[in-house]
């Protein structure tokens, strides 16, 4: 691989951990913070409303985004434009109607729904369907851990594999992809009873092969082949969980990591990270960094009252001094390391500078859209520039620009 010449072979690039422990159910959170941006609140959901697990809180107008359900018994303590806050409570303290409310399981597999009707049912059960419902010739289920440090993919392929099996049945019924391929790490032993009838592709479990575009290249040998698309196994597993239980999606699987240790947890949607750390017995001190997502591409959090939401893949703590600090002012020293390592052969060196100096017009000429967000450029930058962040900034700015261009000016209403 390219990076072997470039950087001293980093064992952390391996994406397999021989991790087969079943997922641990995280303790019930005391507070929840649910993201409601873009959602429409369900009727009757307001401050002080009492909620029960599985209760519909908000719907999303898009077919691609799963609806939002409460994951605990509790009381809504606040609602603002971005979040719904819930204090969990003992069911005994709640009104009888809430305490005794039962969510009727809906068996997707037995329902006989197909195609768009099935997508809608899945969405109503809280699963994001953007990737699941992709229309393509071949849909690759990415069974690799998405990035180093995140470790739930292997258990999903063995101990927790019934979910995947169920999800595959549903994917076939959704019928938007002509063919399904499950990509798994080389050497994985697959239980053929669970994965009946699906093509398996074996891929070297080395980052960045877990990035969808690069994974497809590994499988086909072609870069961006027409008609191929991918979906992450995390998303598929959530679909399977909903299919097996018939209840709305209220939990997400994340890896909680600190230093070299990691463990997988099933966490309720909206769990506050501070609670999570406390329950896990992890001490946070001044100067530490916590982030949601993975170590390559995750998102740094500024406060302990942020939360883990659906689709989050991990949560990590890094002690102060574990990596050289990122230096936003650091000028590019033209070492070329990022150019050398970029798997899409674009020029992160120039792209990061264009963004730094707000020359977004130049980013367009430099194929900014090909970036697959792997973060290797920032990983190798010896000047510790936030290279990936600069590129993301350019992408966001240019998307905004394009969106504005698409606007049609309103004709002034004639006075005559």
């Amino acid at each position, binding site marked *: 691989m390219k990076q072997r010449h470039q950087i001293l072979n980093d064992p952390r690039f391996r994406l397999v951990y021989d991790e087969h422990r079943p997922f641990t159910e995280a303790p019930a959170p005391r507070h929840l913070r649910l993201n409601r941006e873009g959602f429409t609140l369900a009727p009757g959901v307001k401050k002080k409303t009492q909620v029960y697990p599985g209760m519909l809180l908000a719907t999303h107008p898009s077919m691609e985004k799963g609806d939002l359900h409460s994951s605990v018994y509790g009381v809504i303590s606040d609602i603002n434009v971005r979040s719904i806050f819930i204090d969990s409570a003992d069911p005994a303290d709640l009104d009888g109607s809430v305490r005794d409310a039962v969510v009727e399981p809906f068996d997707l597999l037995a329902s006989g729904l197909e195609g768009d009707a099935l997508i809608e049912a899945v969405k109503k059960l809280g699963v994001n369907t953007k990737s699941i419902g992709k229309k393509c010739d071949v849909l690759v289920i990415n069974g690799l851990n998405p990035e180093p440090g995140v470790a739930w993919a292997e258990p999903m392929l063995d101990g927790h594999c019934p979910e995947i099996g169920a999800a595959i049945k549903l994917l076939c019924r959704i019928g938007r992809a002509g063919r399904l391929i499950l990509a798994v790490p080389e050497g994985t032993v697959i239980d053929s009873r669970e994965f009946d009838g699906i093509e398996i592709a074996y891929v070297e479990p080395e980052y960045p092969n877990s990035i969808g575009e690069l994974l497809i290249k590994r499988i086909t040998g072609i870069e961006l082949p027409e008609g191929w698309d991918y979906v992450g196994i995390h998303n598929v597993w959530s679909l399977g969980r909903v299919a097996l239980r018939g209840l709305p999606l209220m939990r997400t699987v994340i890896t909680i990591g600190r230093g070299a240790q990691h463990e997988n947890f099933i966490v309720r949607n909206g769990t506050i990270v501070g609670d999570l750390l406390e329950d896990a017995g992890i001490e946070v001190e001044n100067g530490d960094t916590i982030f949601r997502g993975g170590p390559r591409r995750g998102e740094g959090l500024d406060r302990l009252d942020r939360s883990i939401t659906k689709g989050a893949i991990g949560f990590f703590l890094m002690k102060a001094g574990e990596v050289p600090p990122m230096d936003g002012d650091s000028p590019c020293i*033209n070492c070329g390391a990022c150019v050398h390592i970029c798997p899409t052969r674009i020029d992160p060196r120039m792209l990061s500078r264009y963004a730094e100096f707000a020359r977004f017009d130049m980013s367009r000429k430099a194929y900014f859209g090909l970036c697959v967000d792997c973060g290797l450029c920032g990983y*190798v930058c*010896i000047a510790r520039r936030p290279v990936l962040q600069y590129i993301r900034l350019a992408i966001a700015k240019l998307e905004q620009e394009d969106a504005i261009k698409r606007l049609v000016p309103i004709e002034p209403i004639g006075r005559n």
Partner: protein
Amino acid sequence: MSDKKQVLLAVSAPPFWHCGRTIRSFSLHTLLALAPAAVLAVMQWGIPAARVMALAMLAAVLTETACRRAMGAKMTWGEDGTSAITGLLLAFLLPASAPWWIVVLGAAGAVGIGRMAFGGYGANPVCATLVGWALIYVSYPLPMDASATLLSTDLIDPLAKLRAFGADAVGLSSLDLLLGRQLGGLGAAQSGAILLGGIYIAARGIVHWQIPAAFLLGTAATASVFWIADPAAHAGPLFHIFGGSTMLAAFFLATEGSCSPHRVIPMWIFGLIGGALVVIIRTFGSYPDGAPFAVMLINLLAPMCSVIPTFPFGYRNGGRR
């Protein structure tokens, strides 16, 4: 939860894992790679060589600090080690007999004009060390001439001799050259030690190995052409590789990141042209050692090399986006 809110977290942008290499660690490895040549130089020339090297490094660091102050940039005392390397590389090109003012002038020119005038480390279009070197070499050829030390040594300058008397008269084997038994820049002449150091930094990934490989290949190939044409007048490929400062140029001067290409094919072209220029300048130019000039010339060529188009991901396939 309640009191936990007080913790002050450090927020950063991804990636949160880093390869751990920094400019400073690169510099330290480079200095380590240059150390054997420096030690051999001191063994050969004694205290004067140590004096030149120390003075050049000190002057380079002080110049950087002074320039930073004048530019209003963050003050450092050369902590990242890059200006010390520039100073040391410059010293490697000087004779042990170089007077102090030449050393200081060269180092100040290298860092001040060669680097800081362009904005600092990594912004220079031409190898900073060579800017300082050219400044003093062209202005004051006499004290820069290693032959001035001729009286105090039995060593001979192979390139001067080649120029004056032809290949047969040189009388130095490749082994002599490799072991530094030649007259030239005090460190540059230690070809063997430089080669060792060069292999070290290439193996560590601090420089891309393609550039030195191409540079040496270019030198050898061009020298072979001349040599086969007329073995009496021209020296062989090994002579050109081990003699003078070719080795230093290939591994340490031509590889400076800001003035060399970063993609594989351009790197090979860049190096091959550089290597060819070494021999051409040595054969036809008016300066005996062509290596530093060759590097300066290819530095100017680097932007051209980078124009060679690369096909970004999926491009050959029509590109989906």
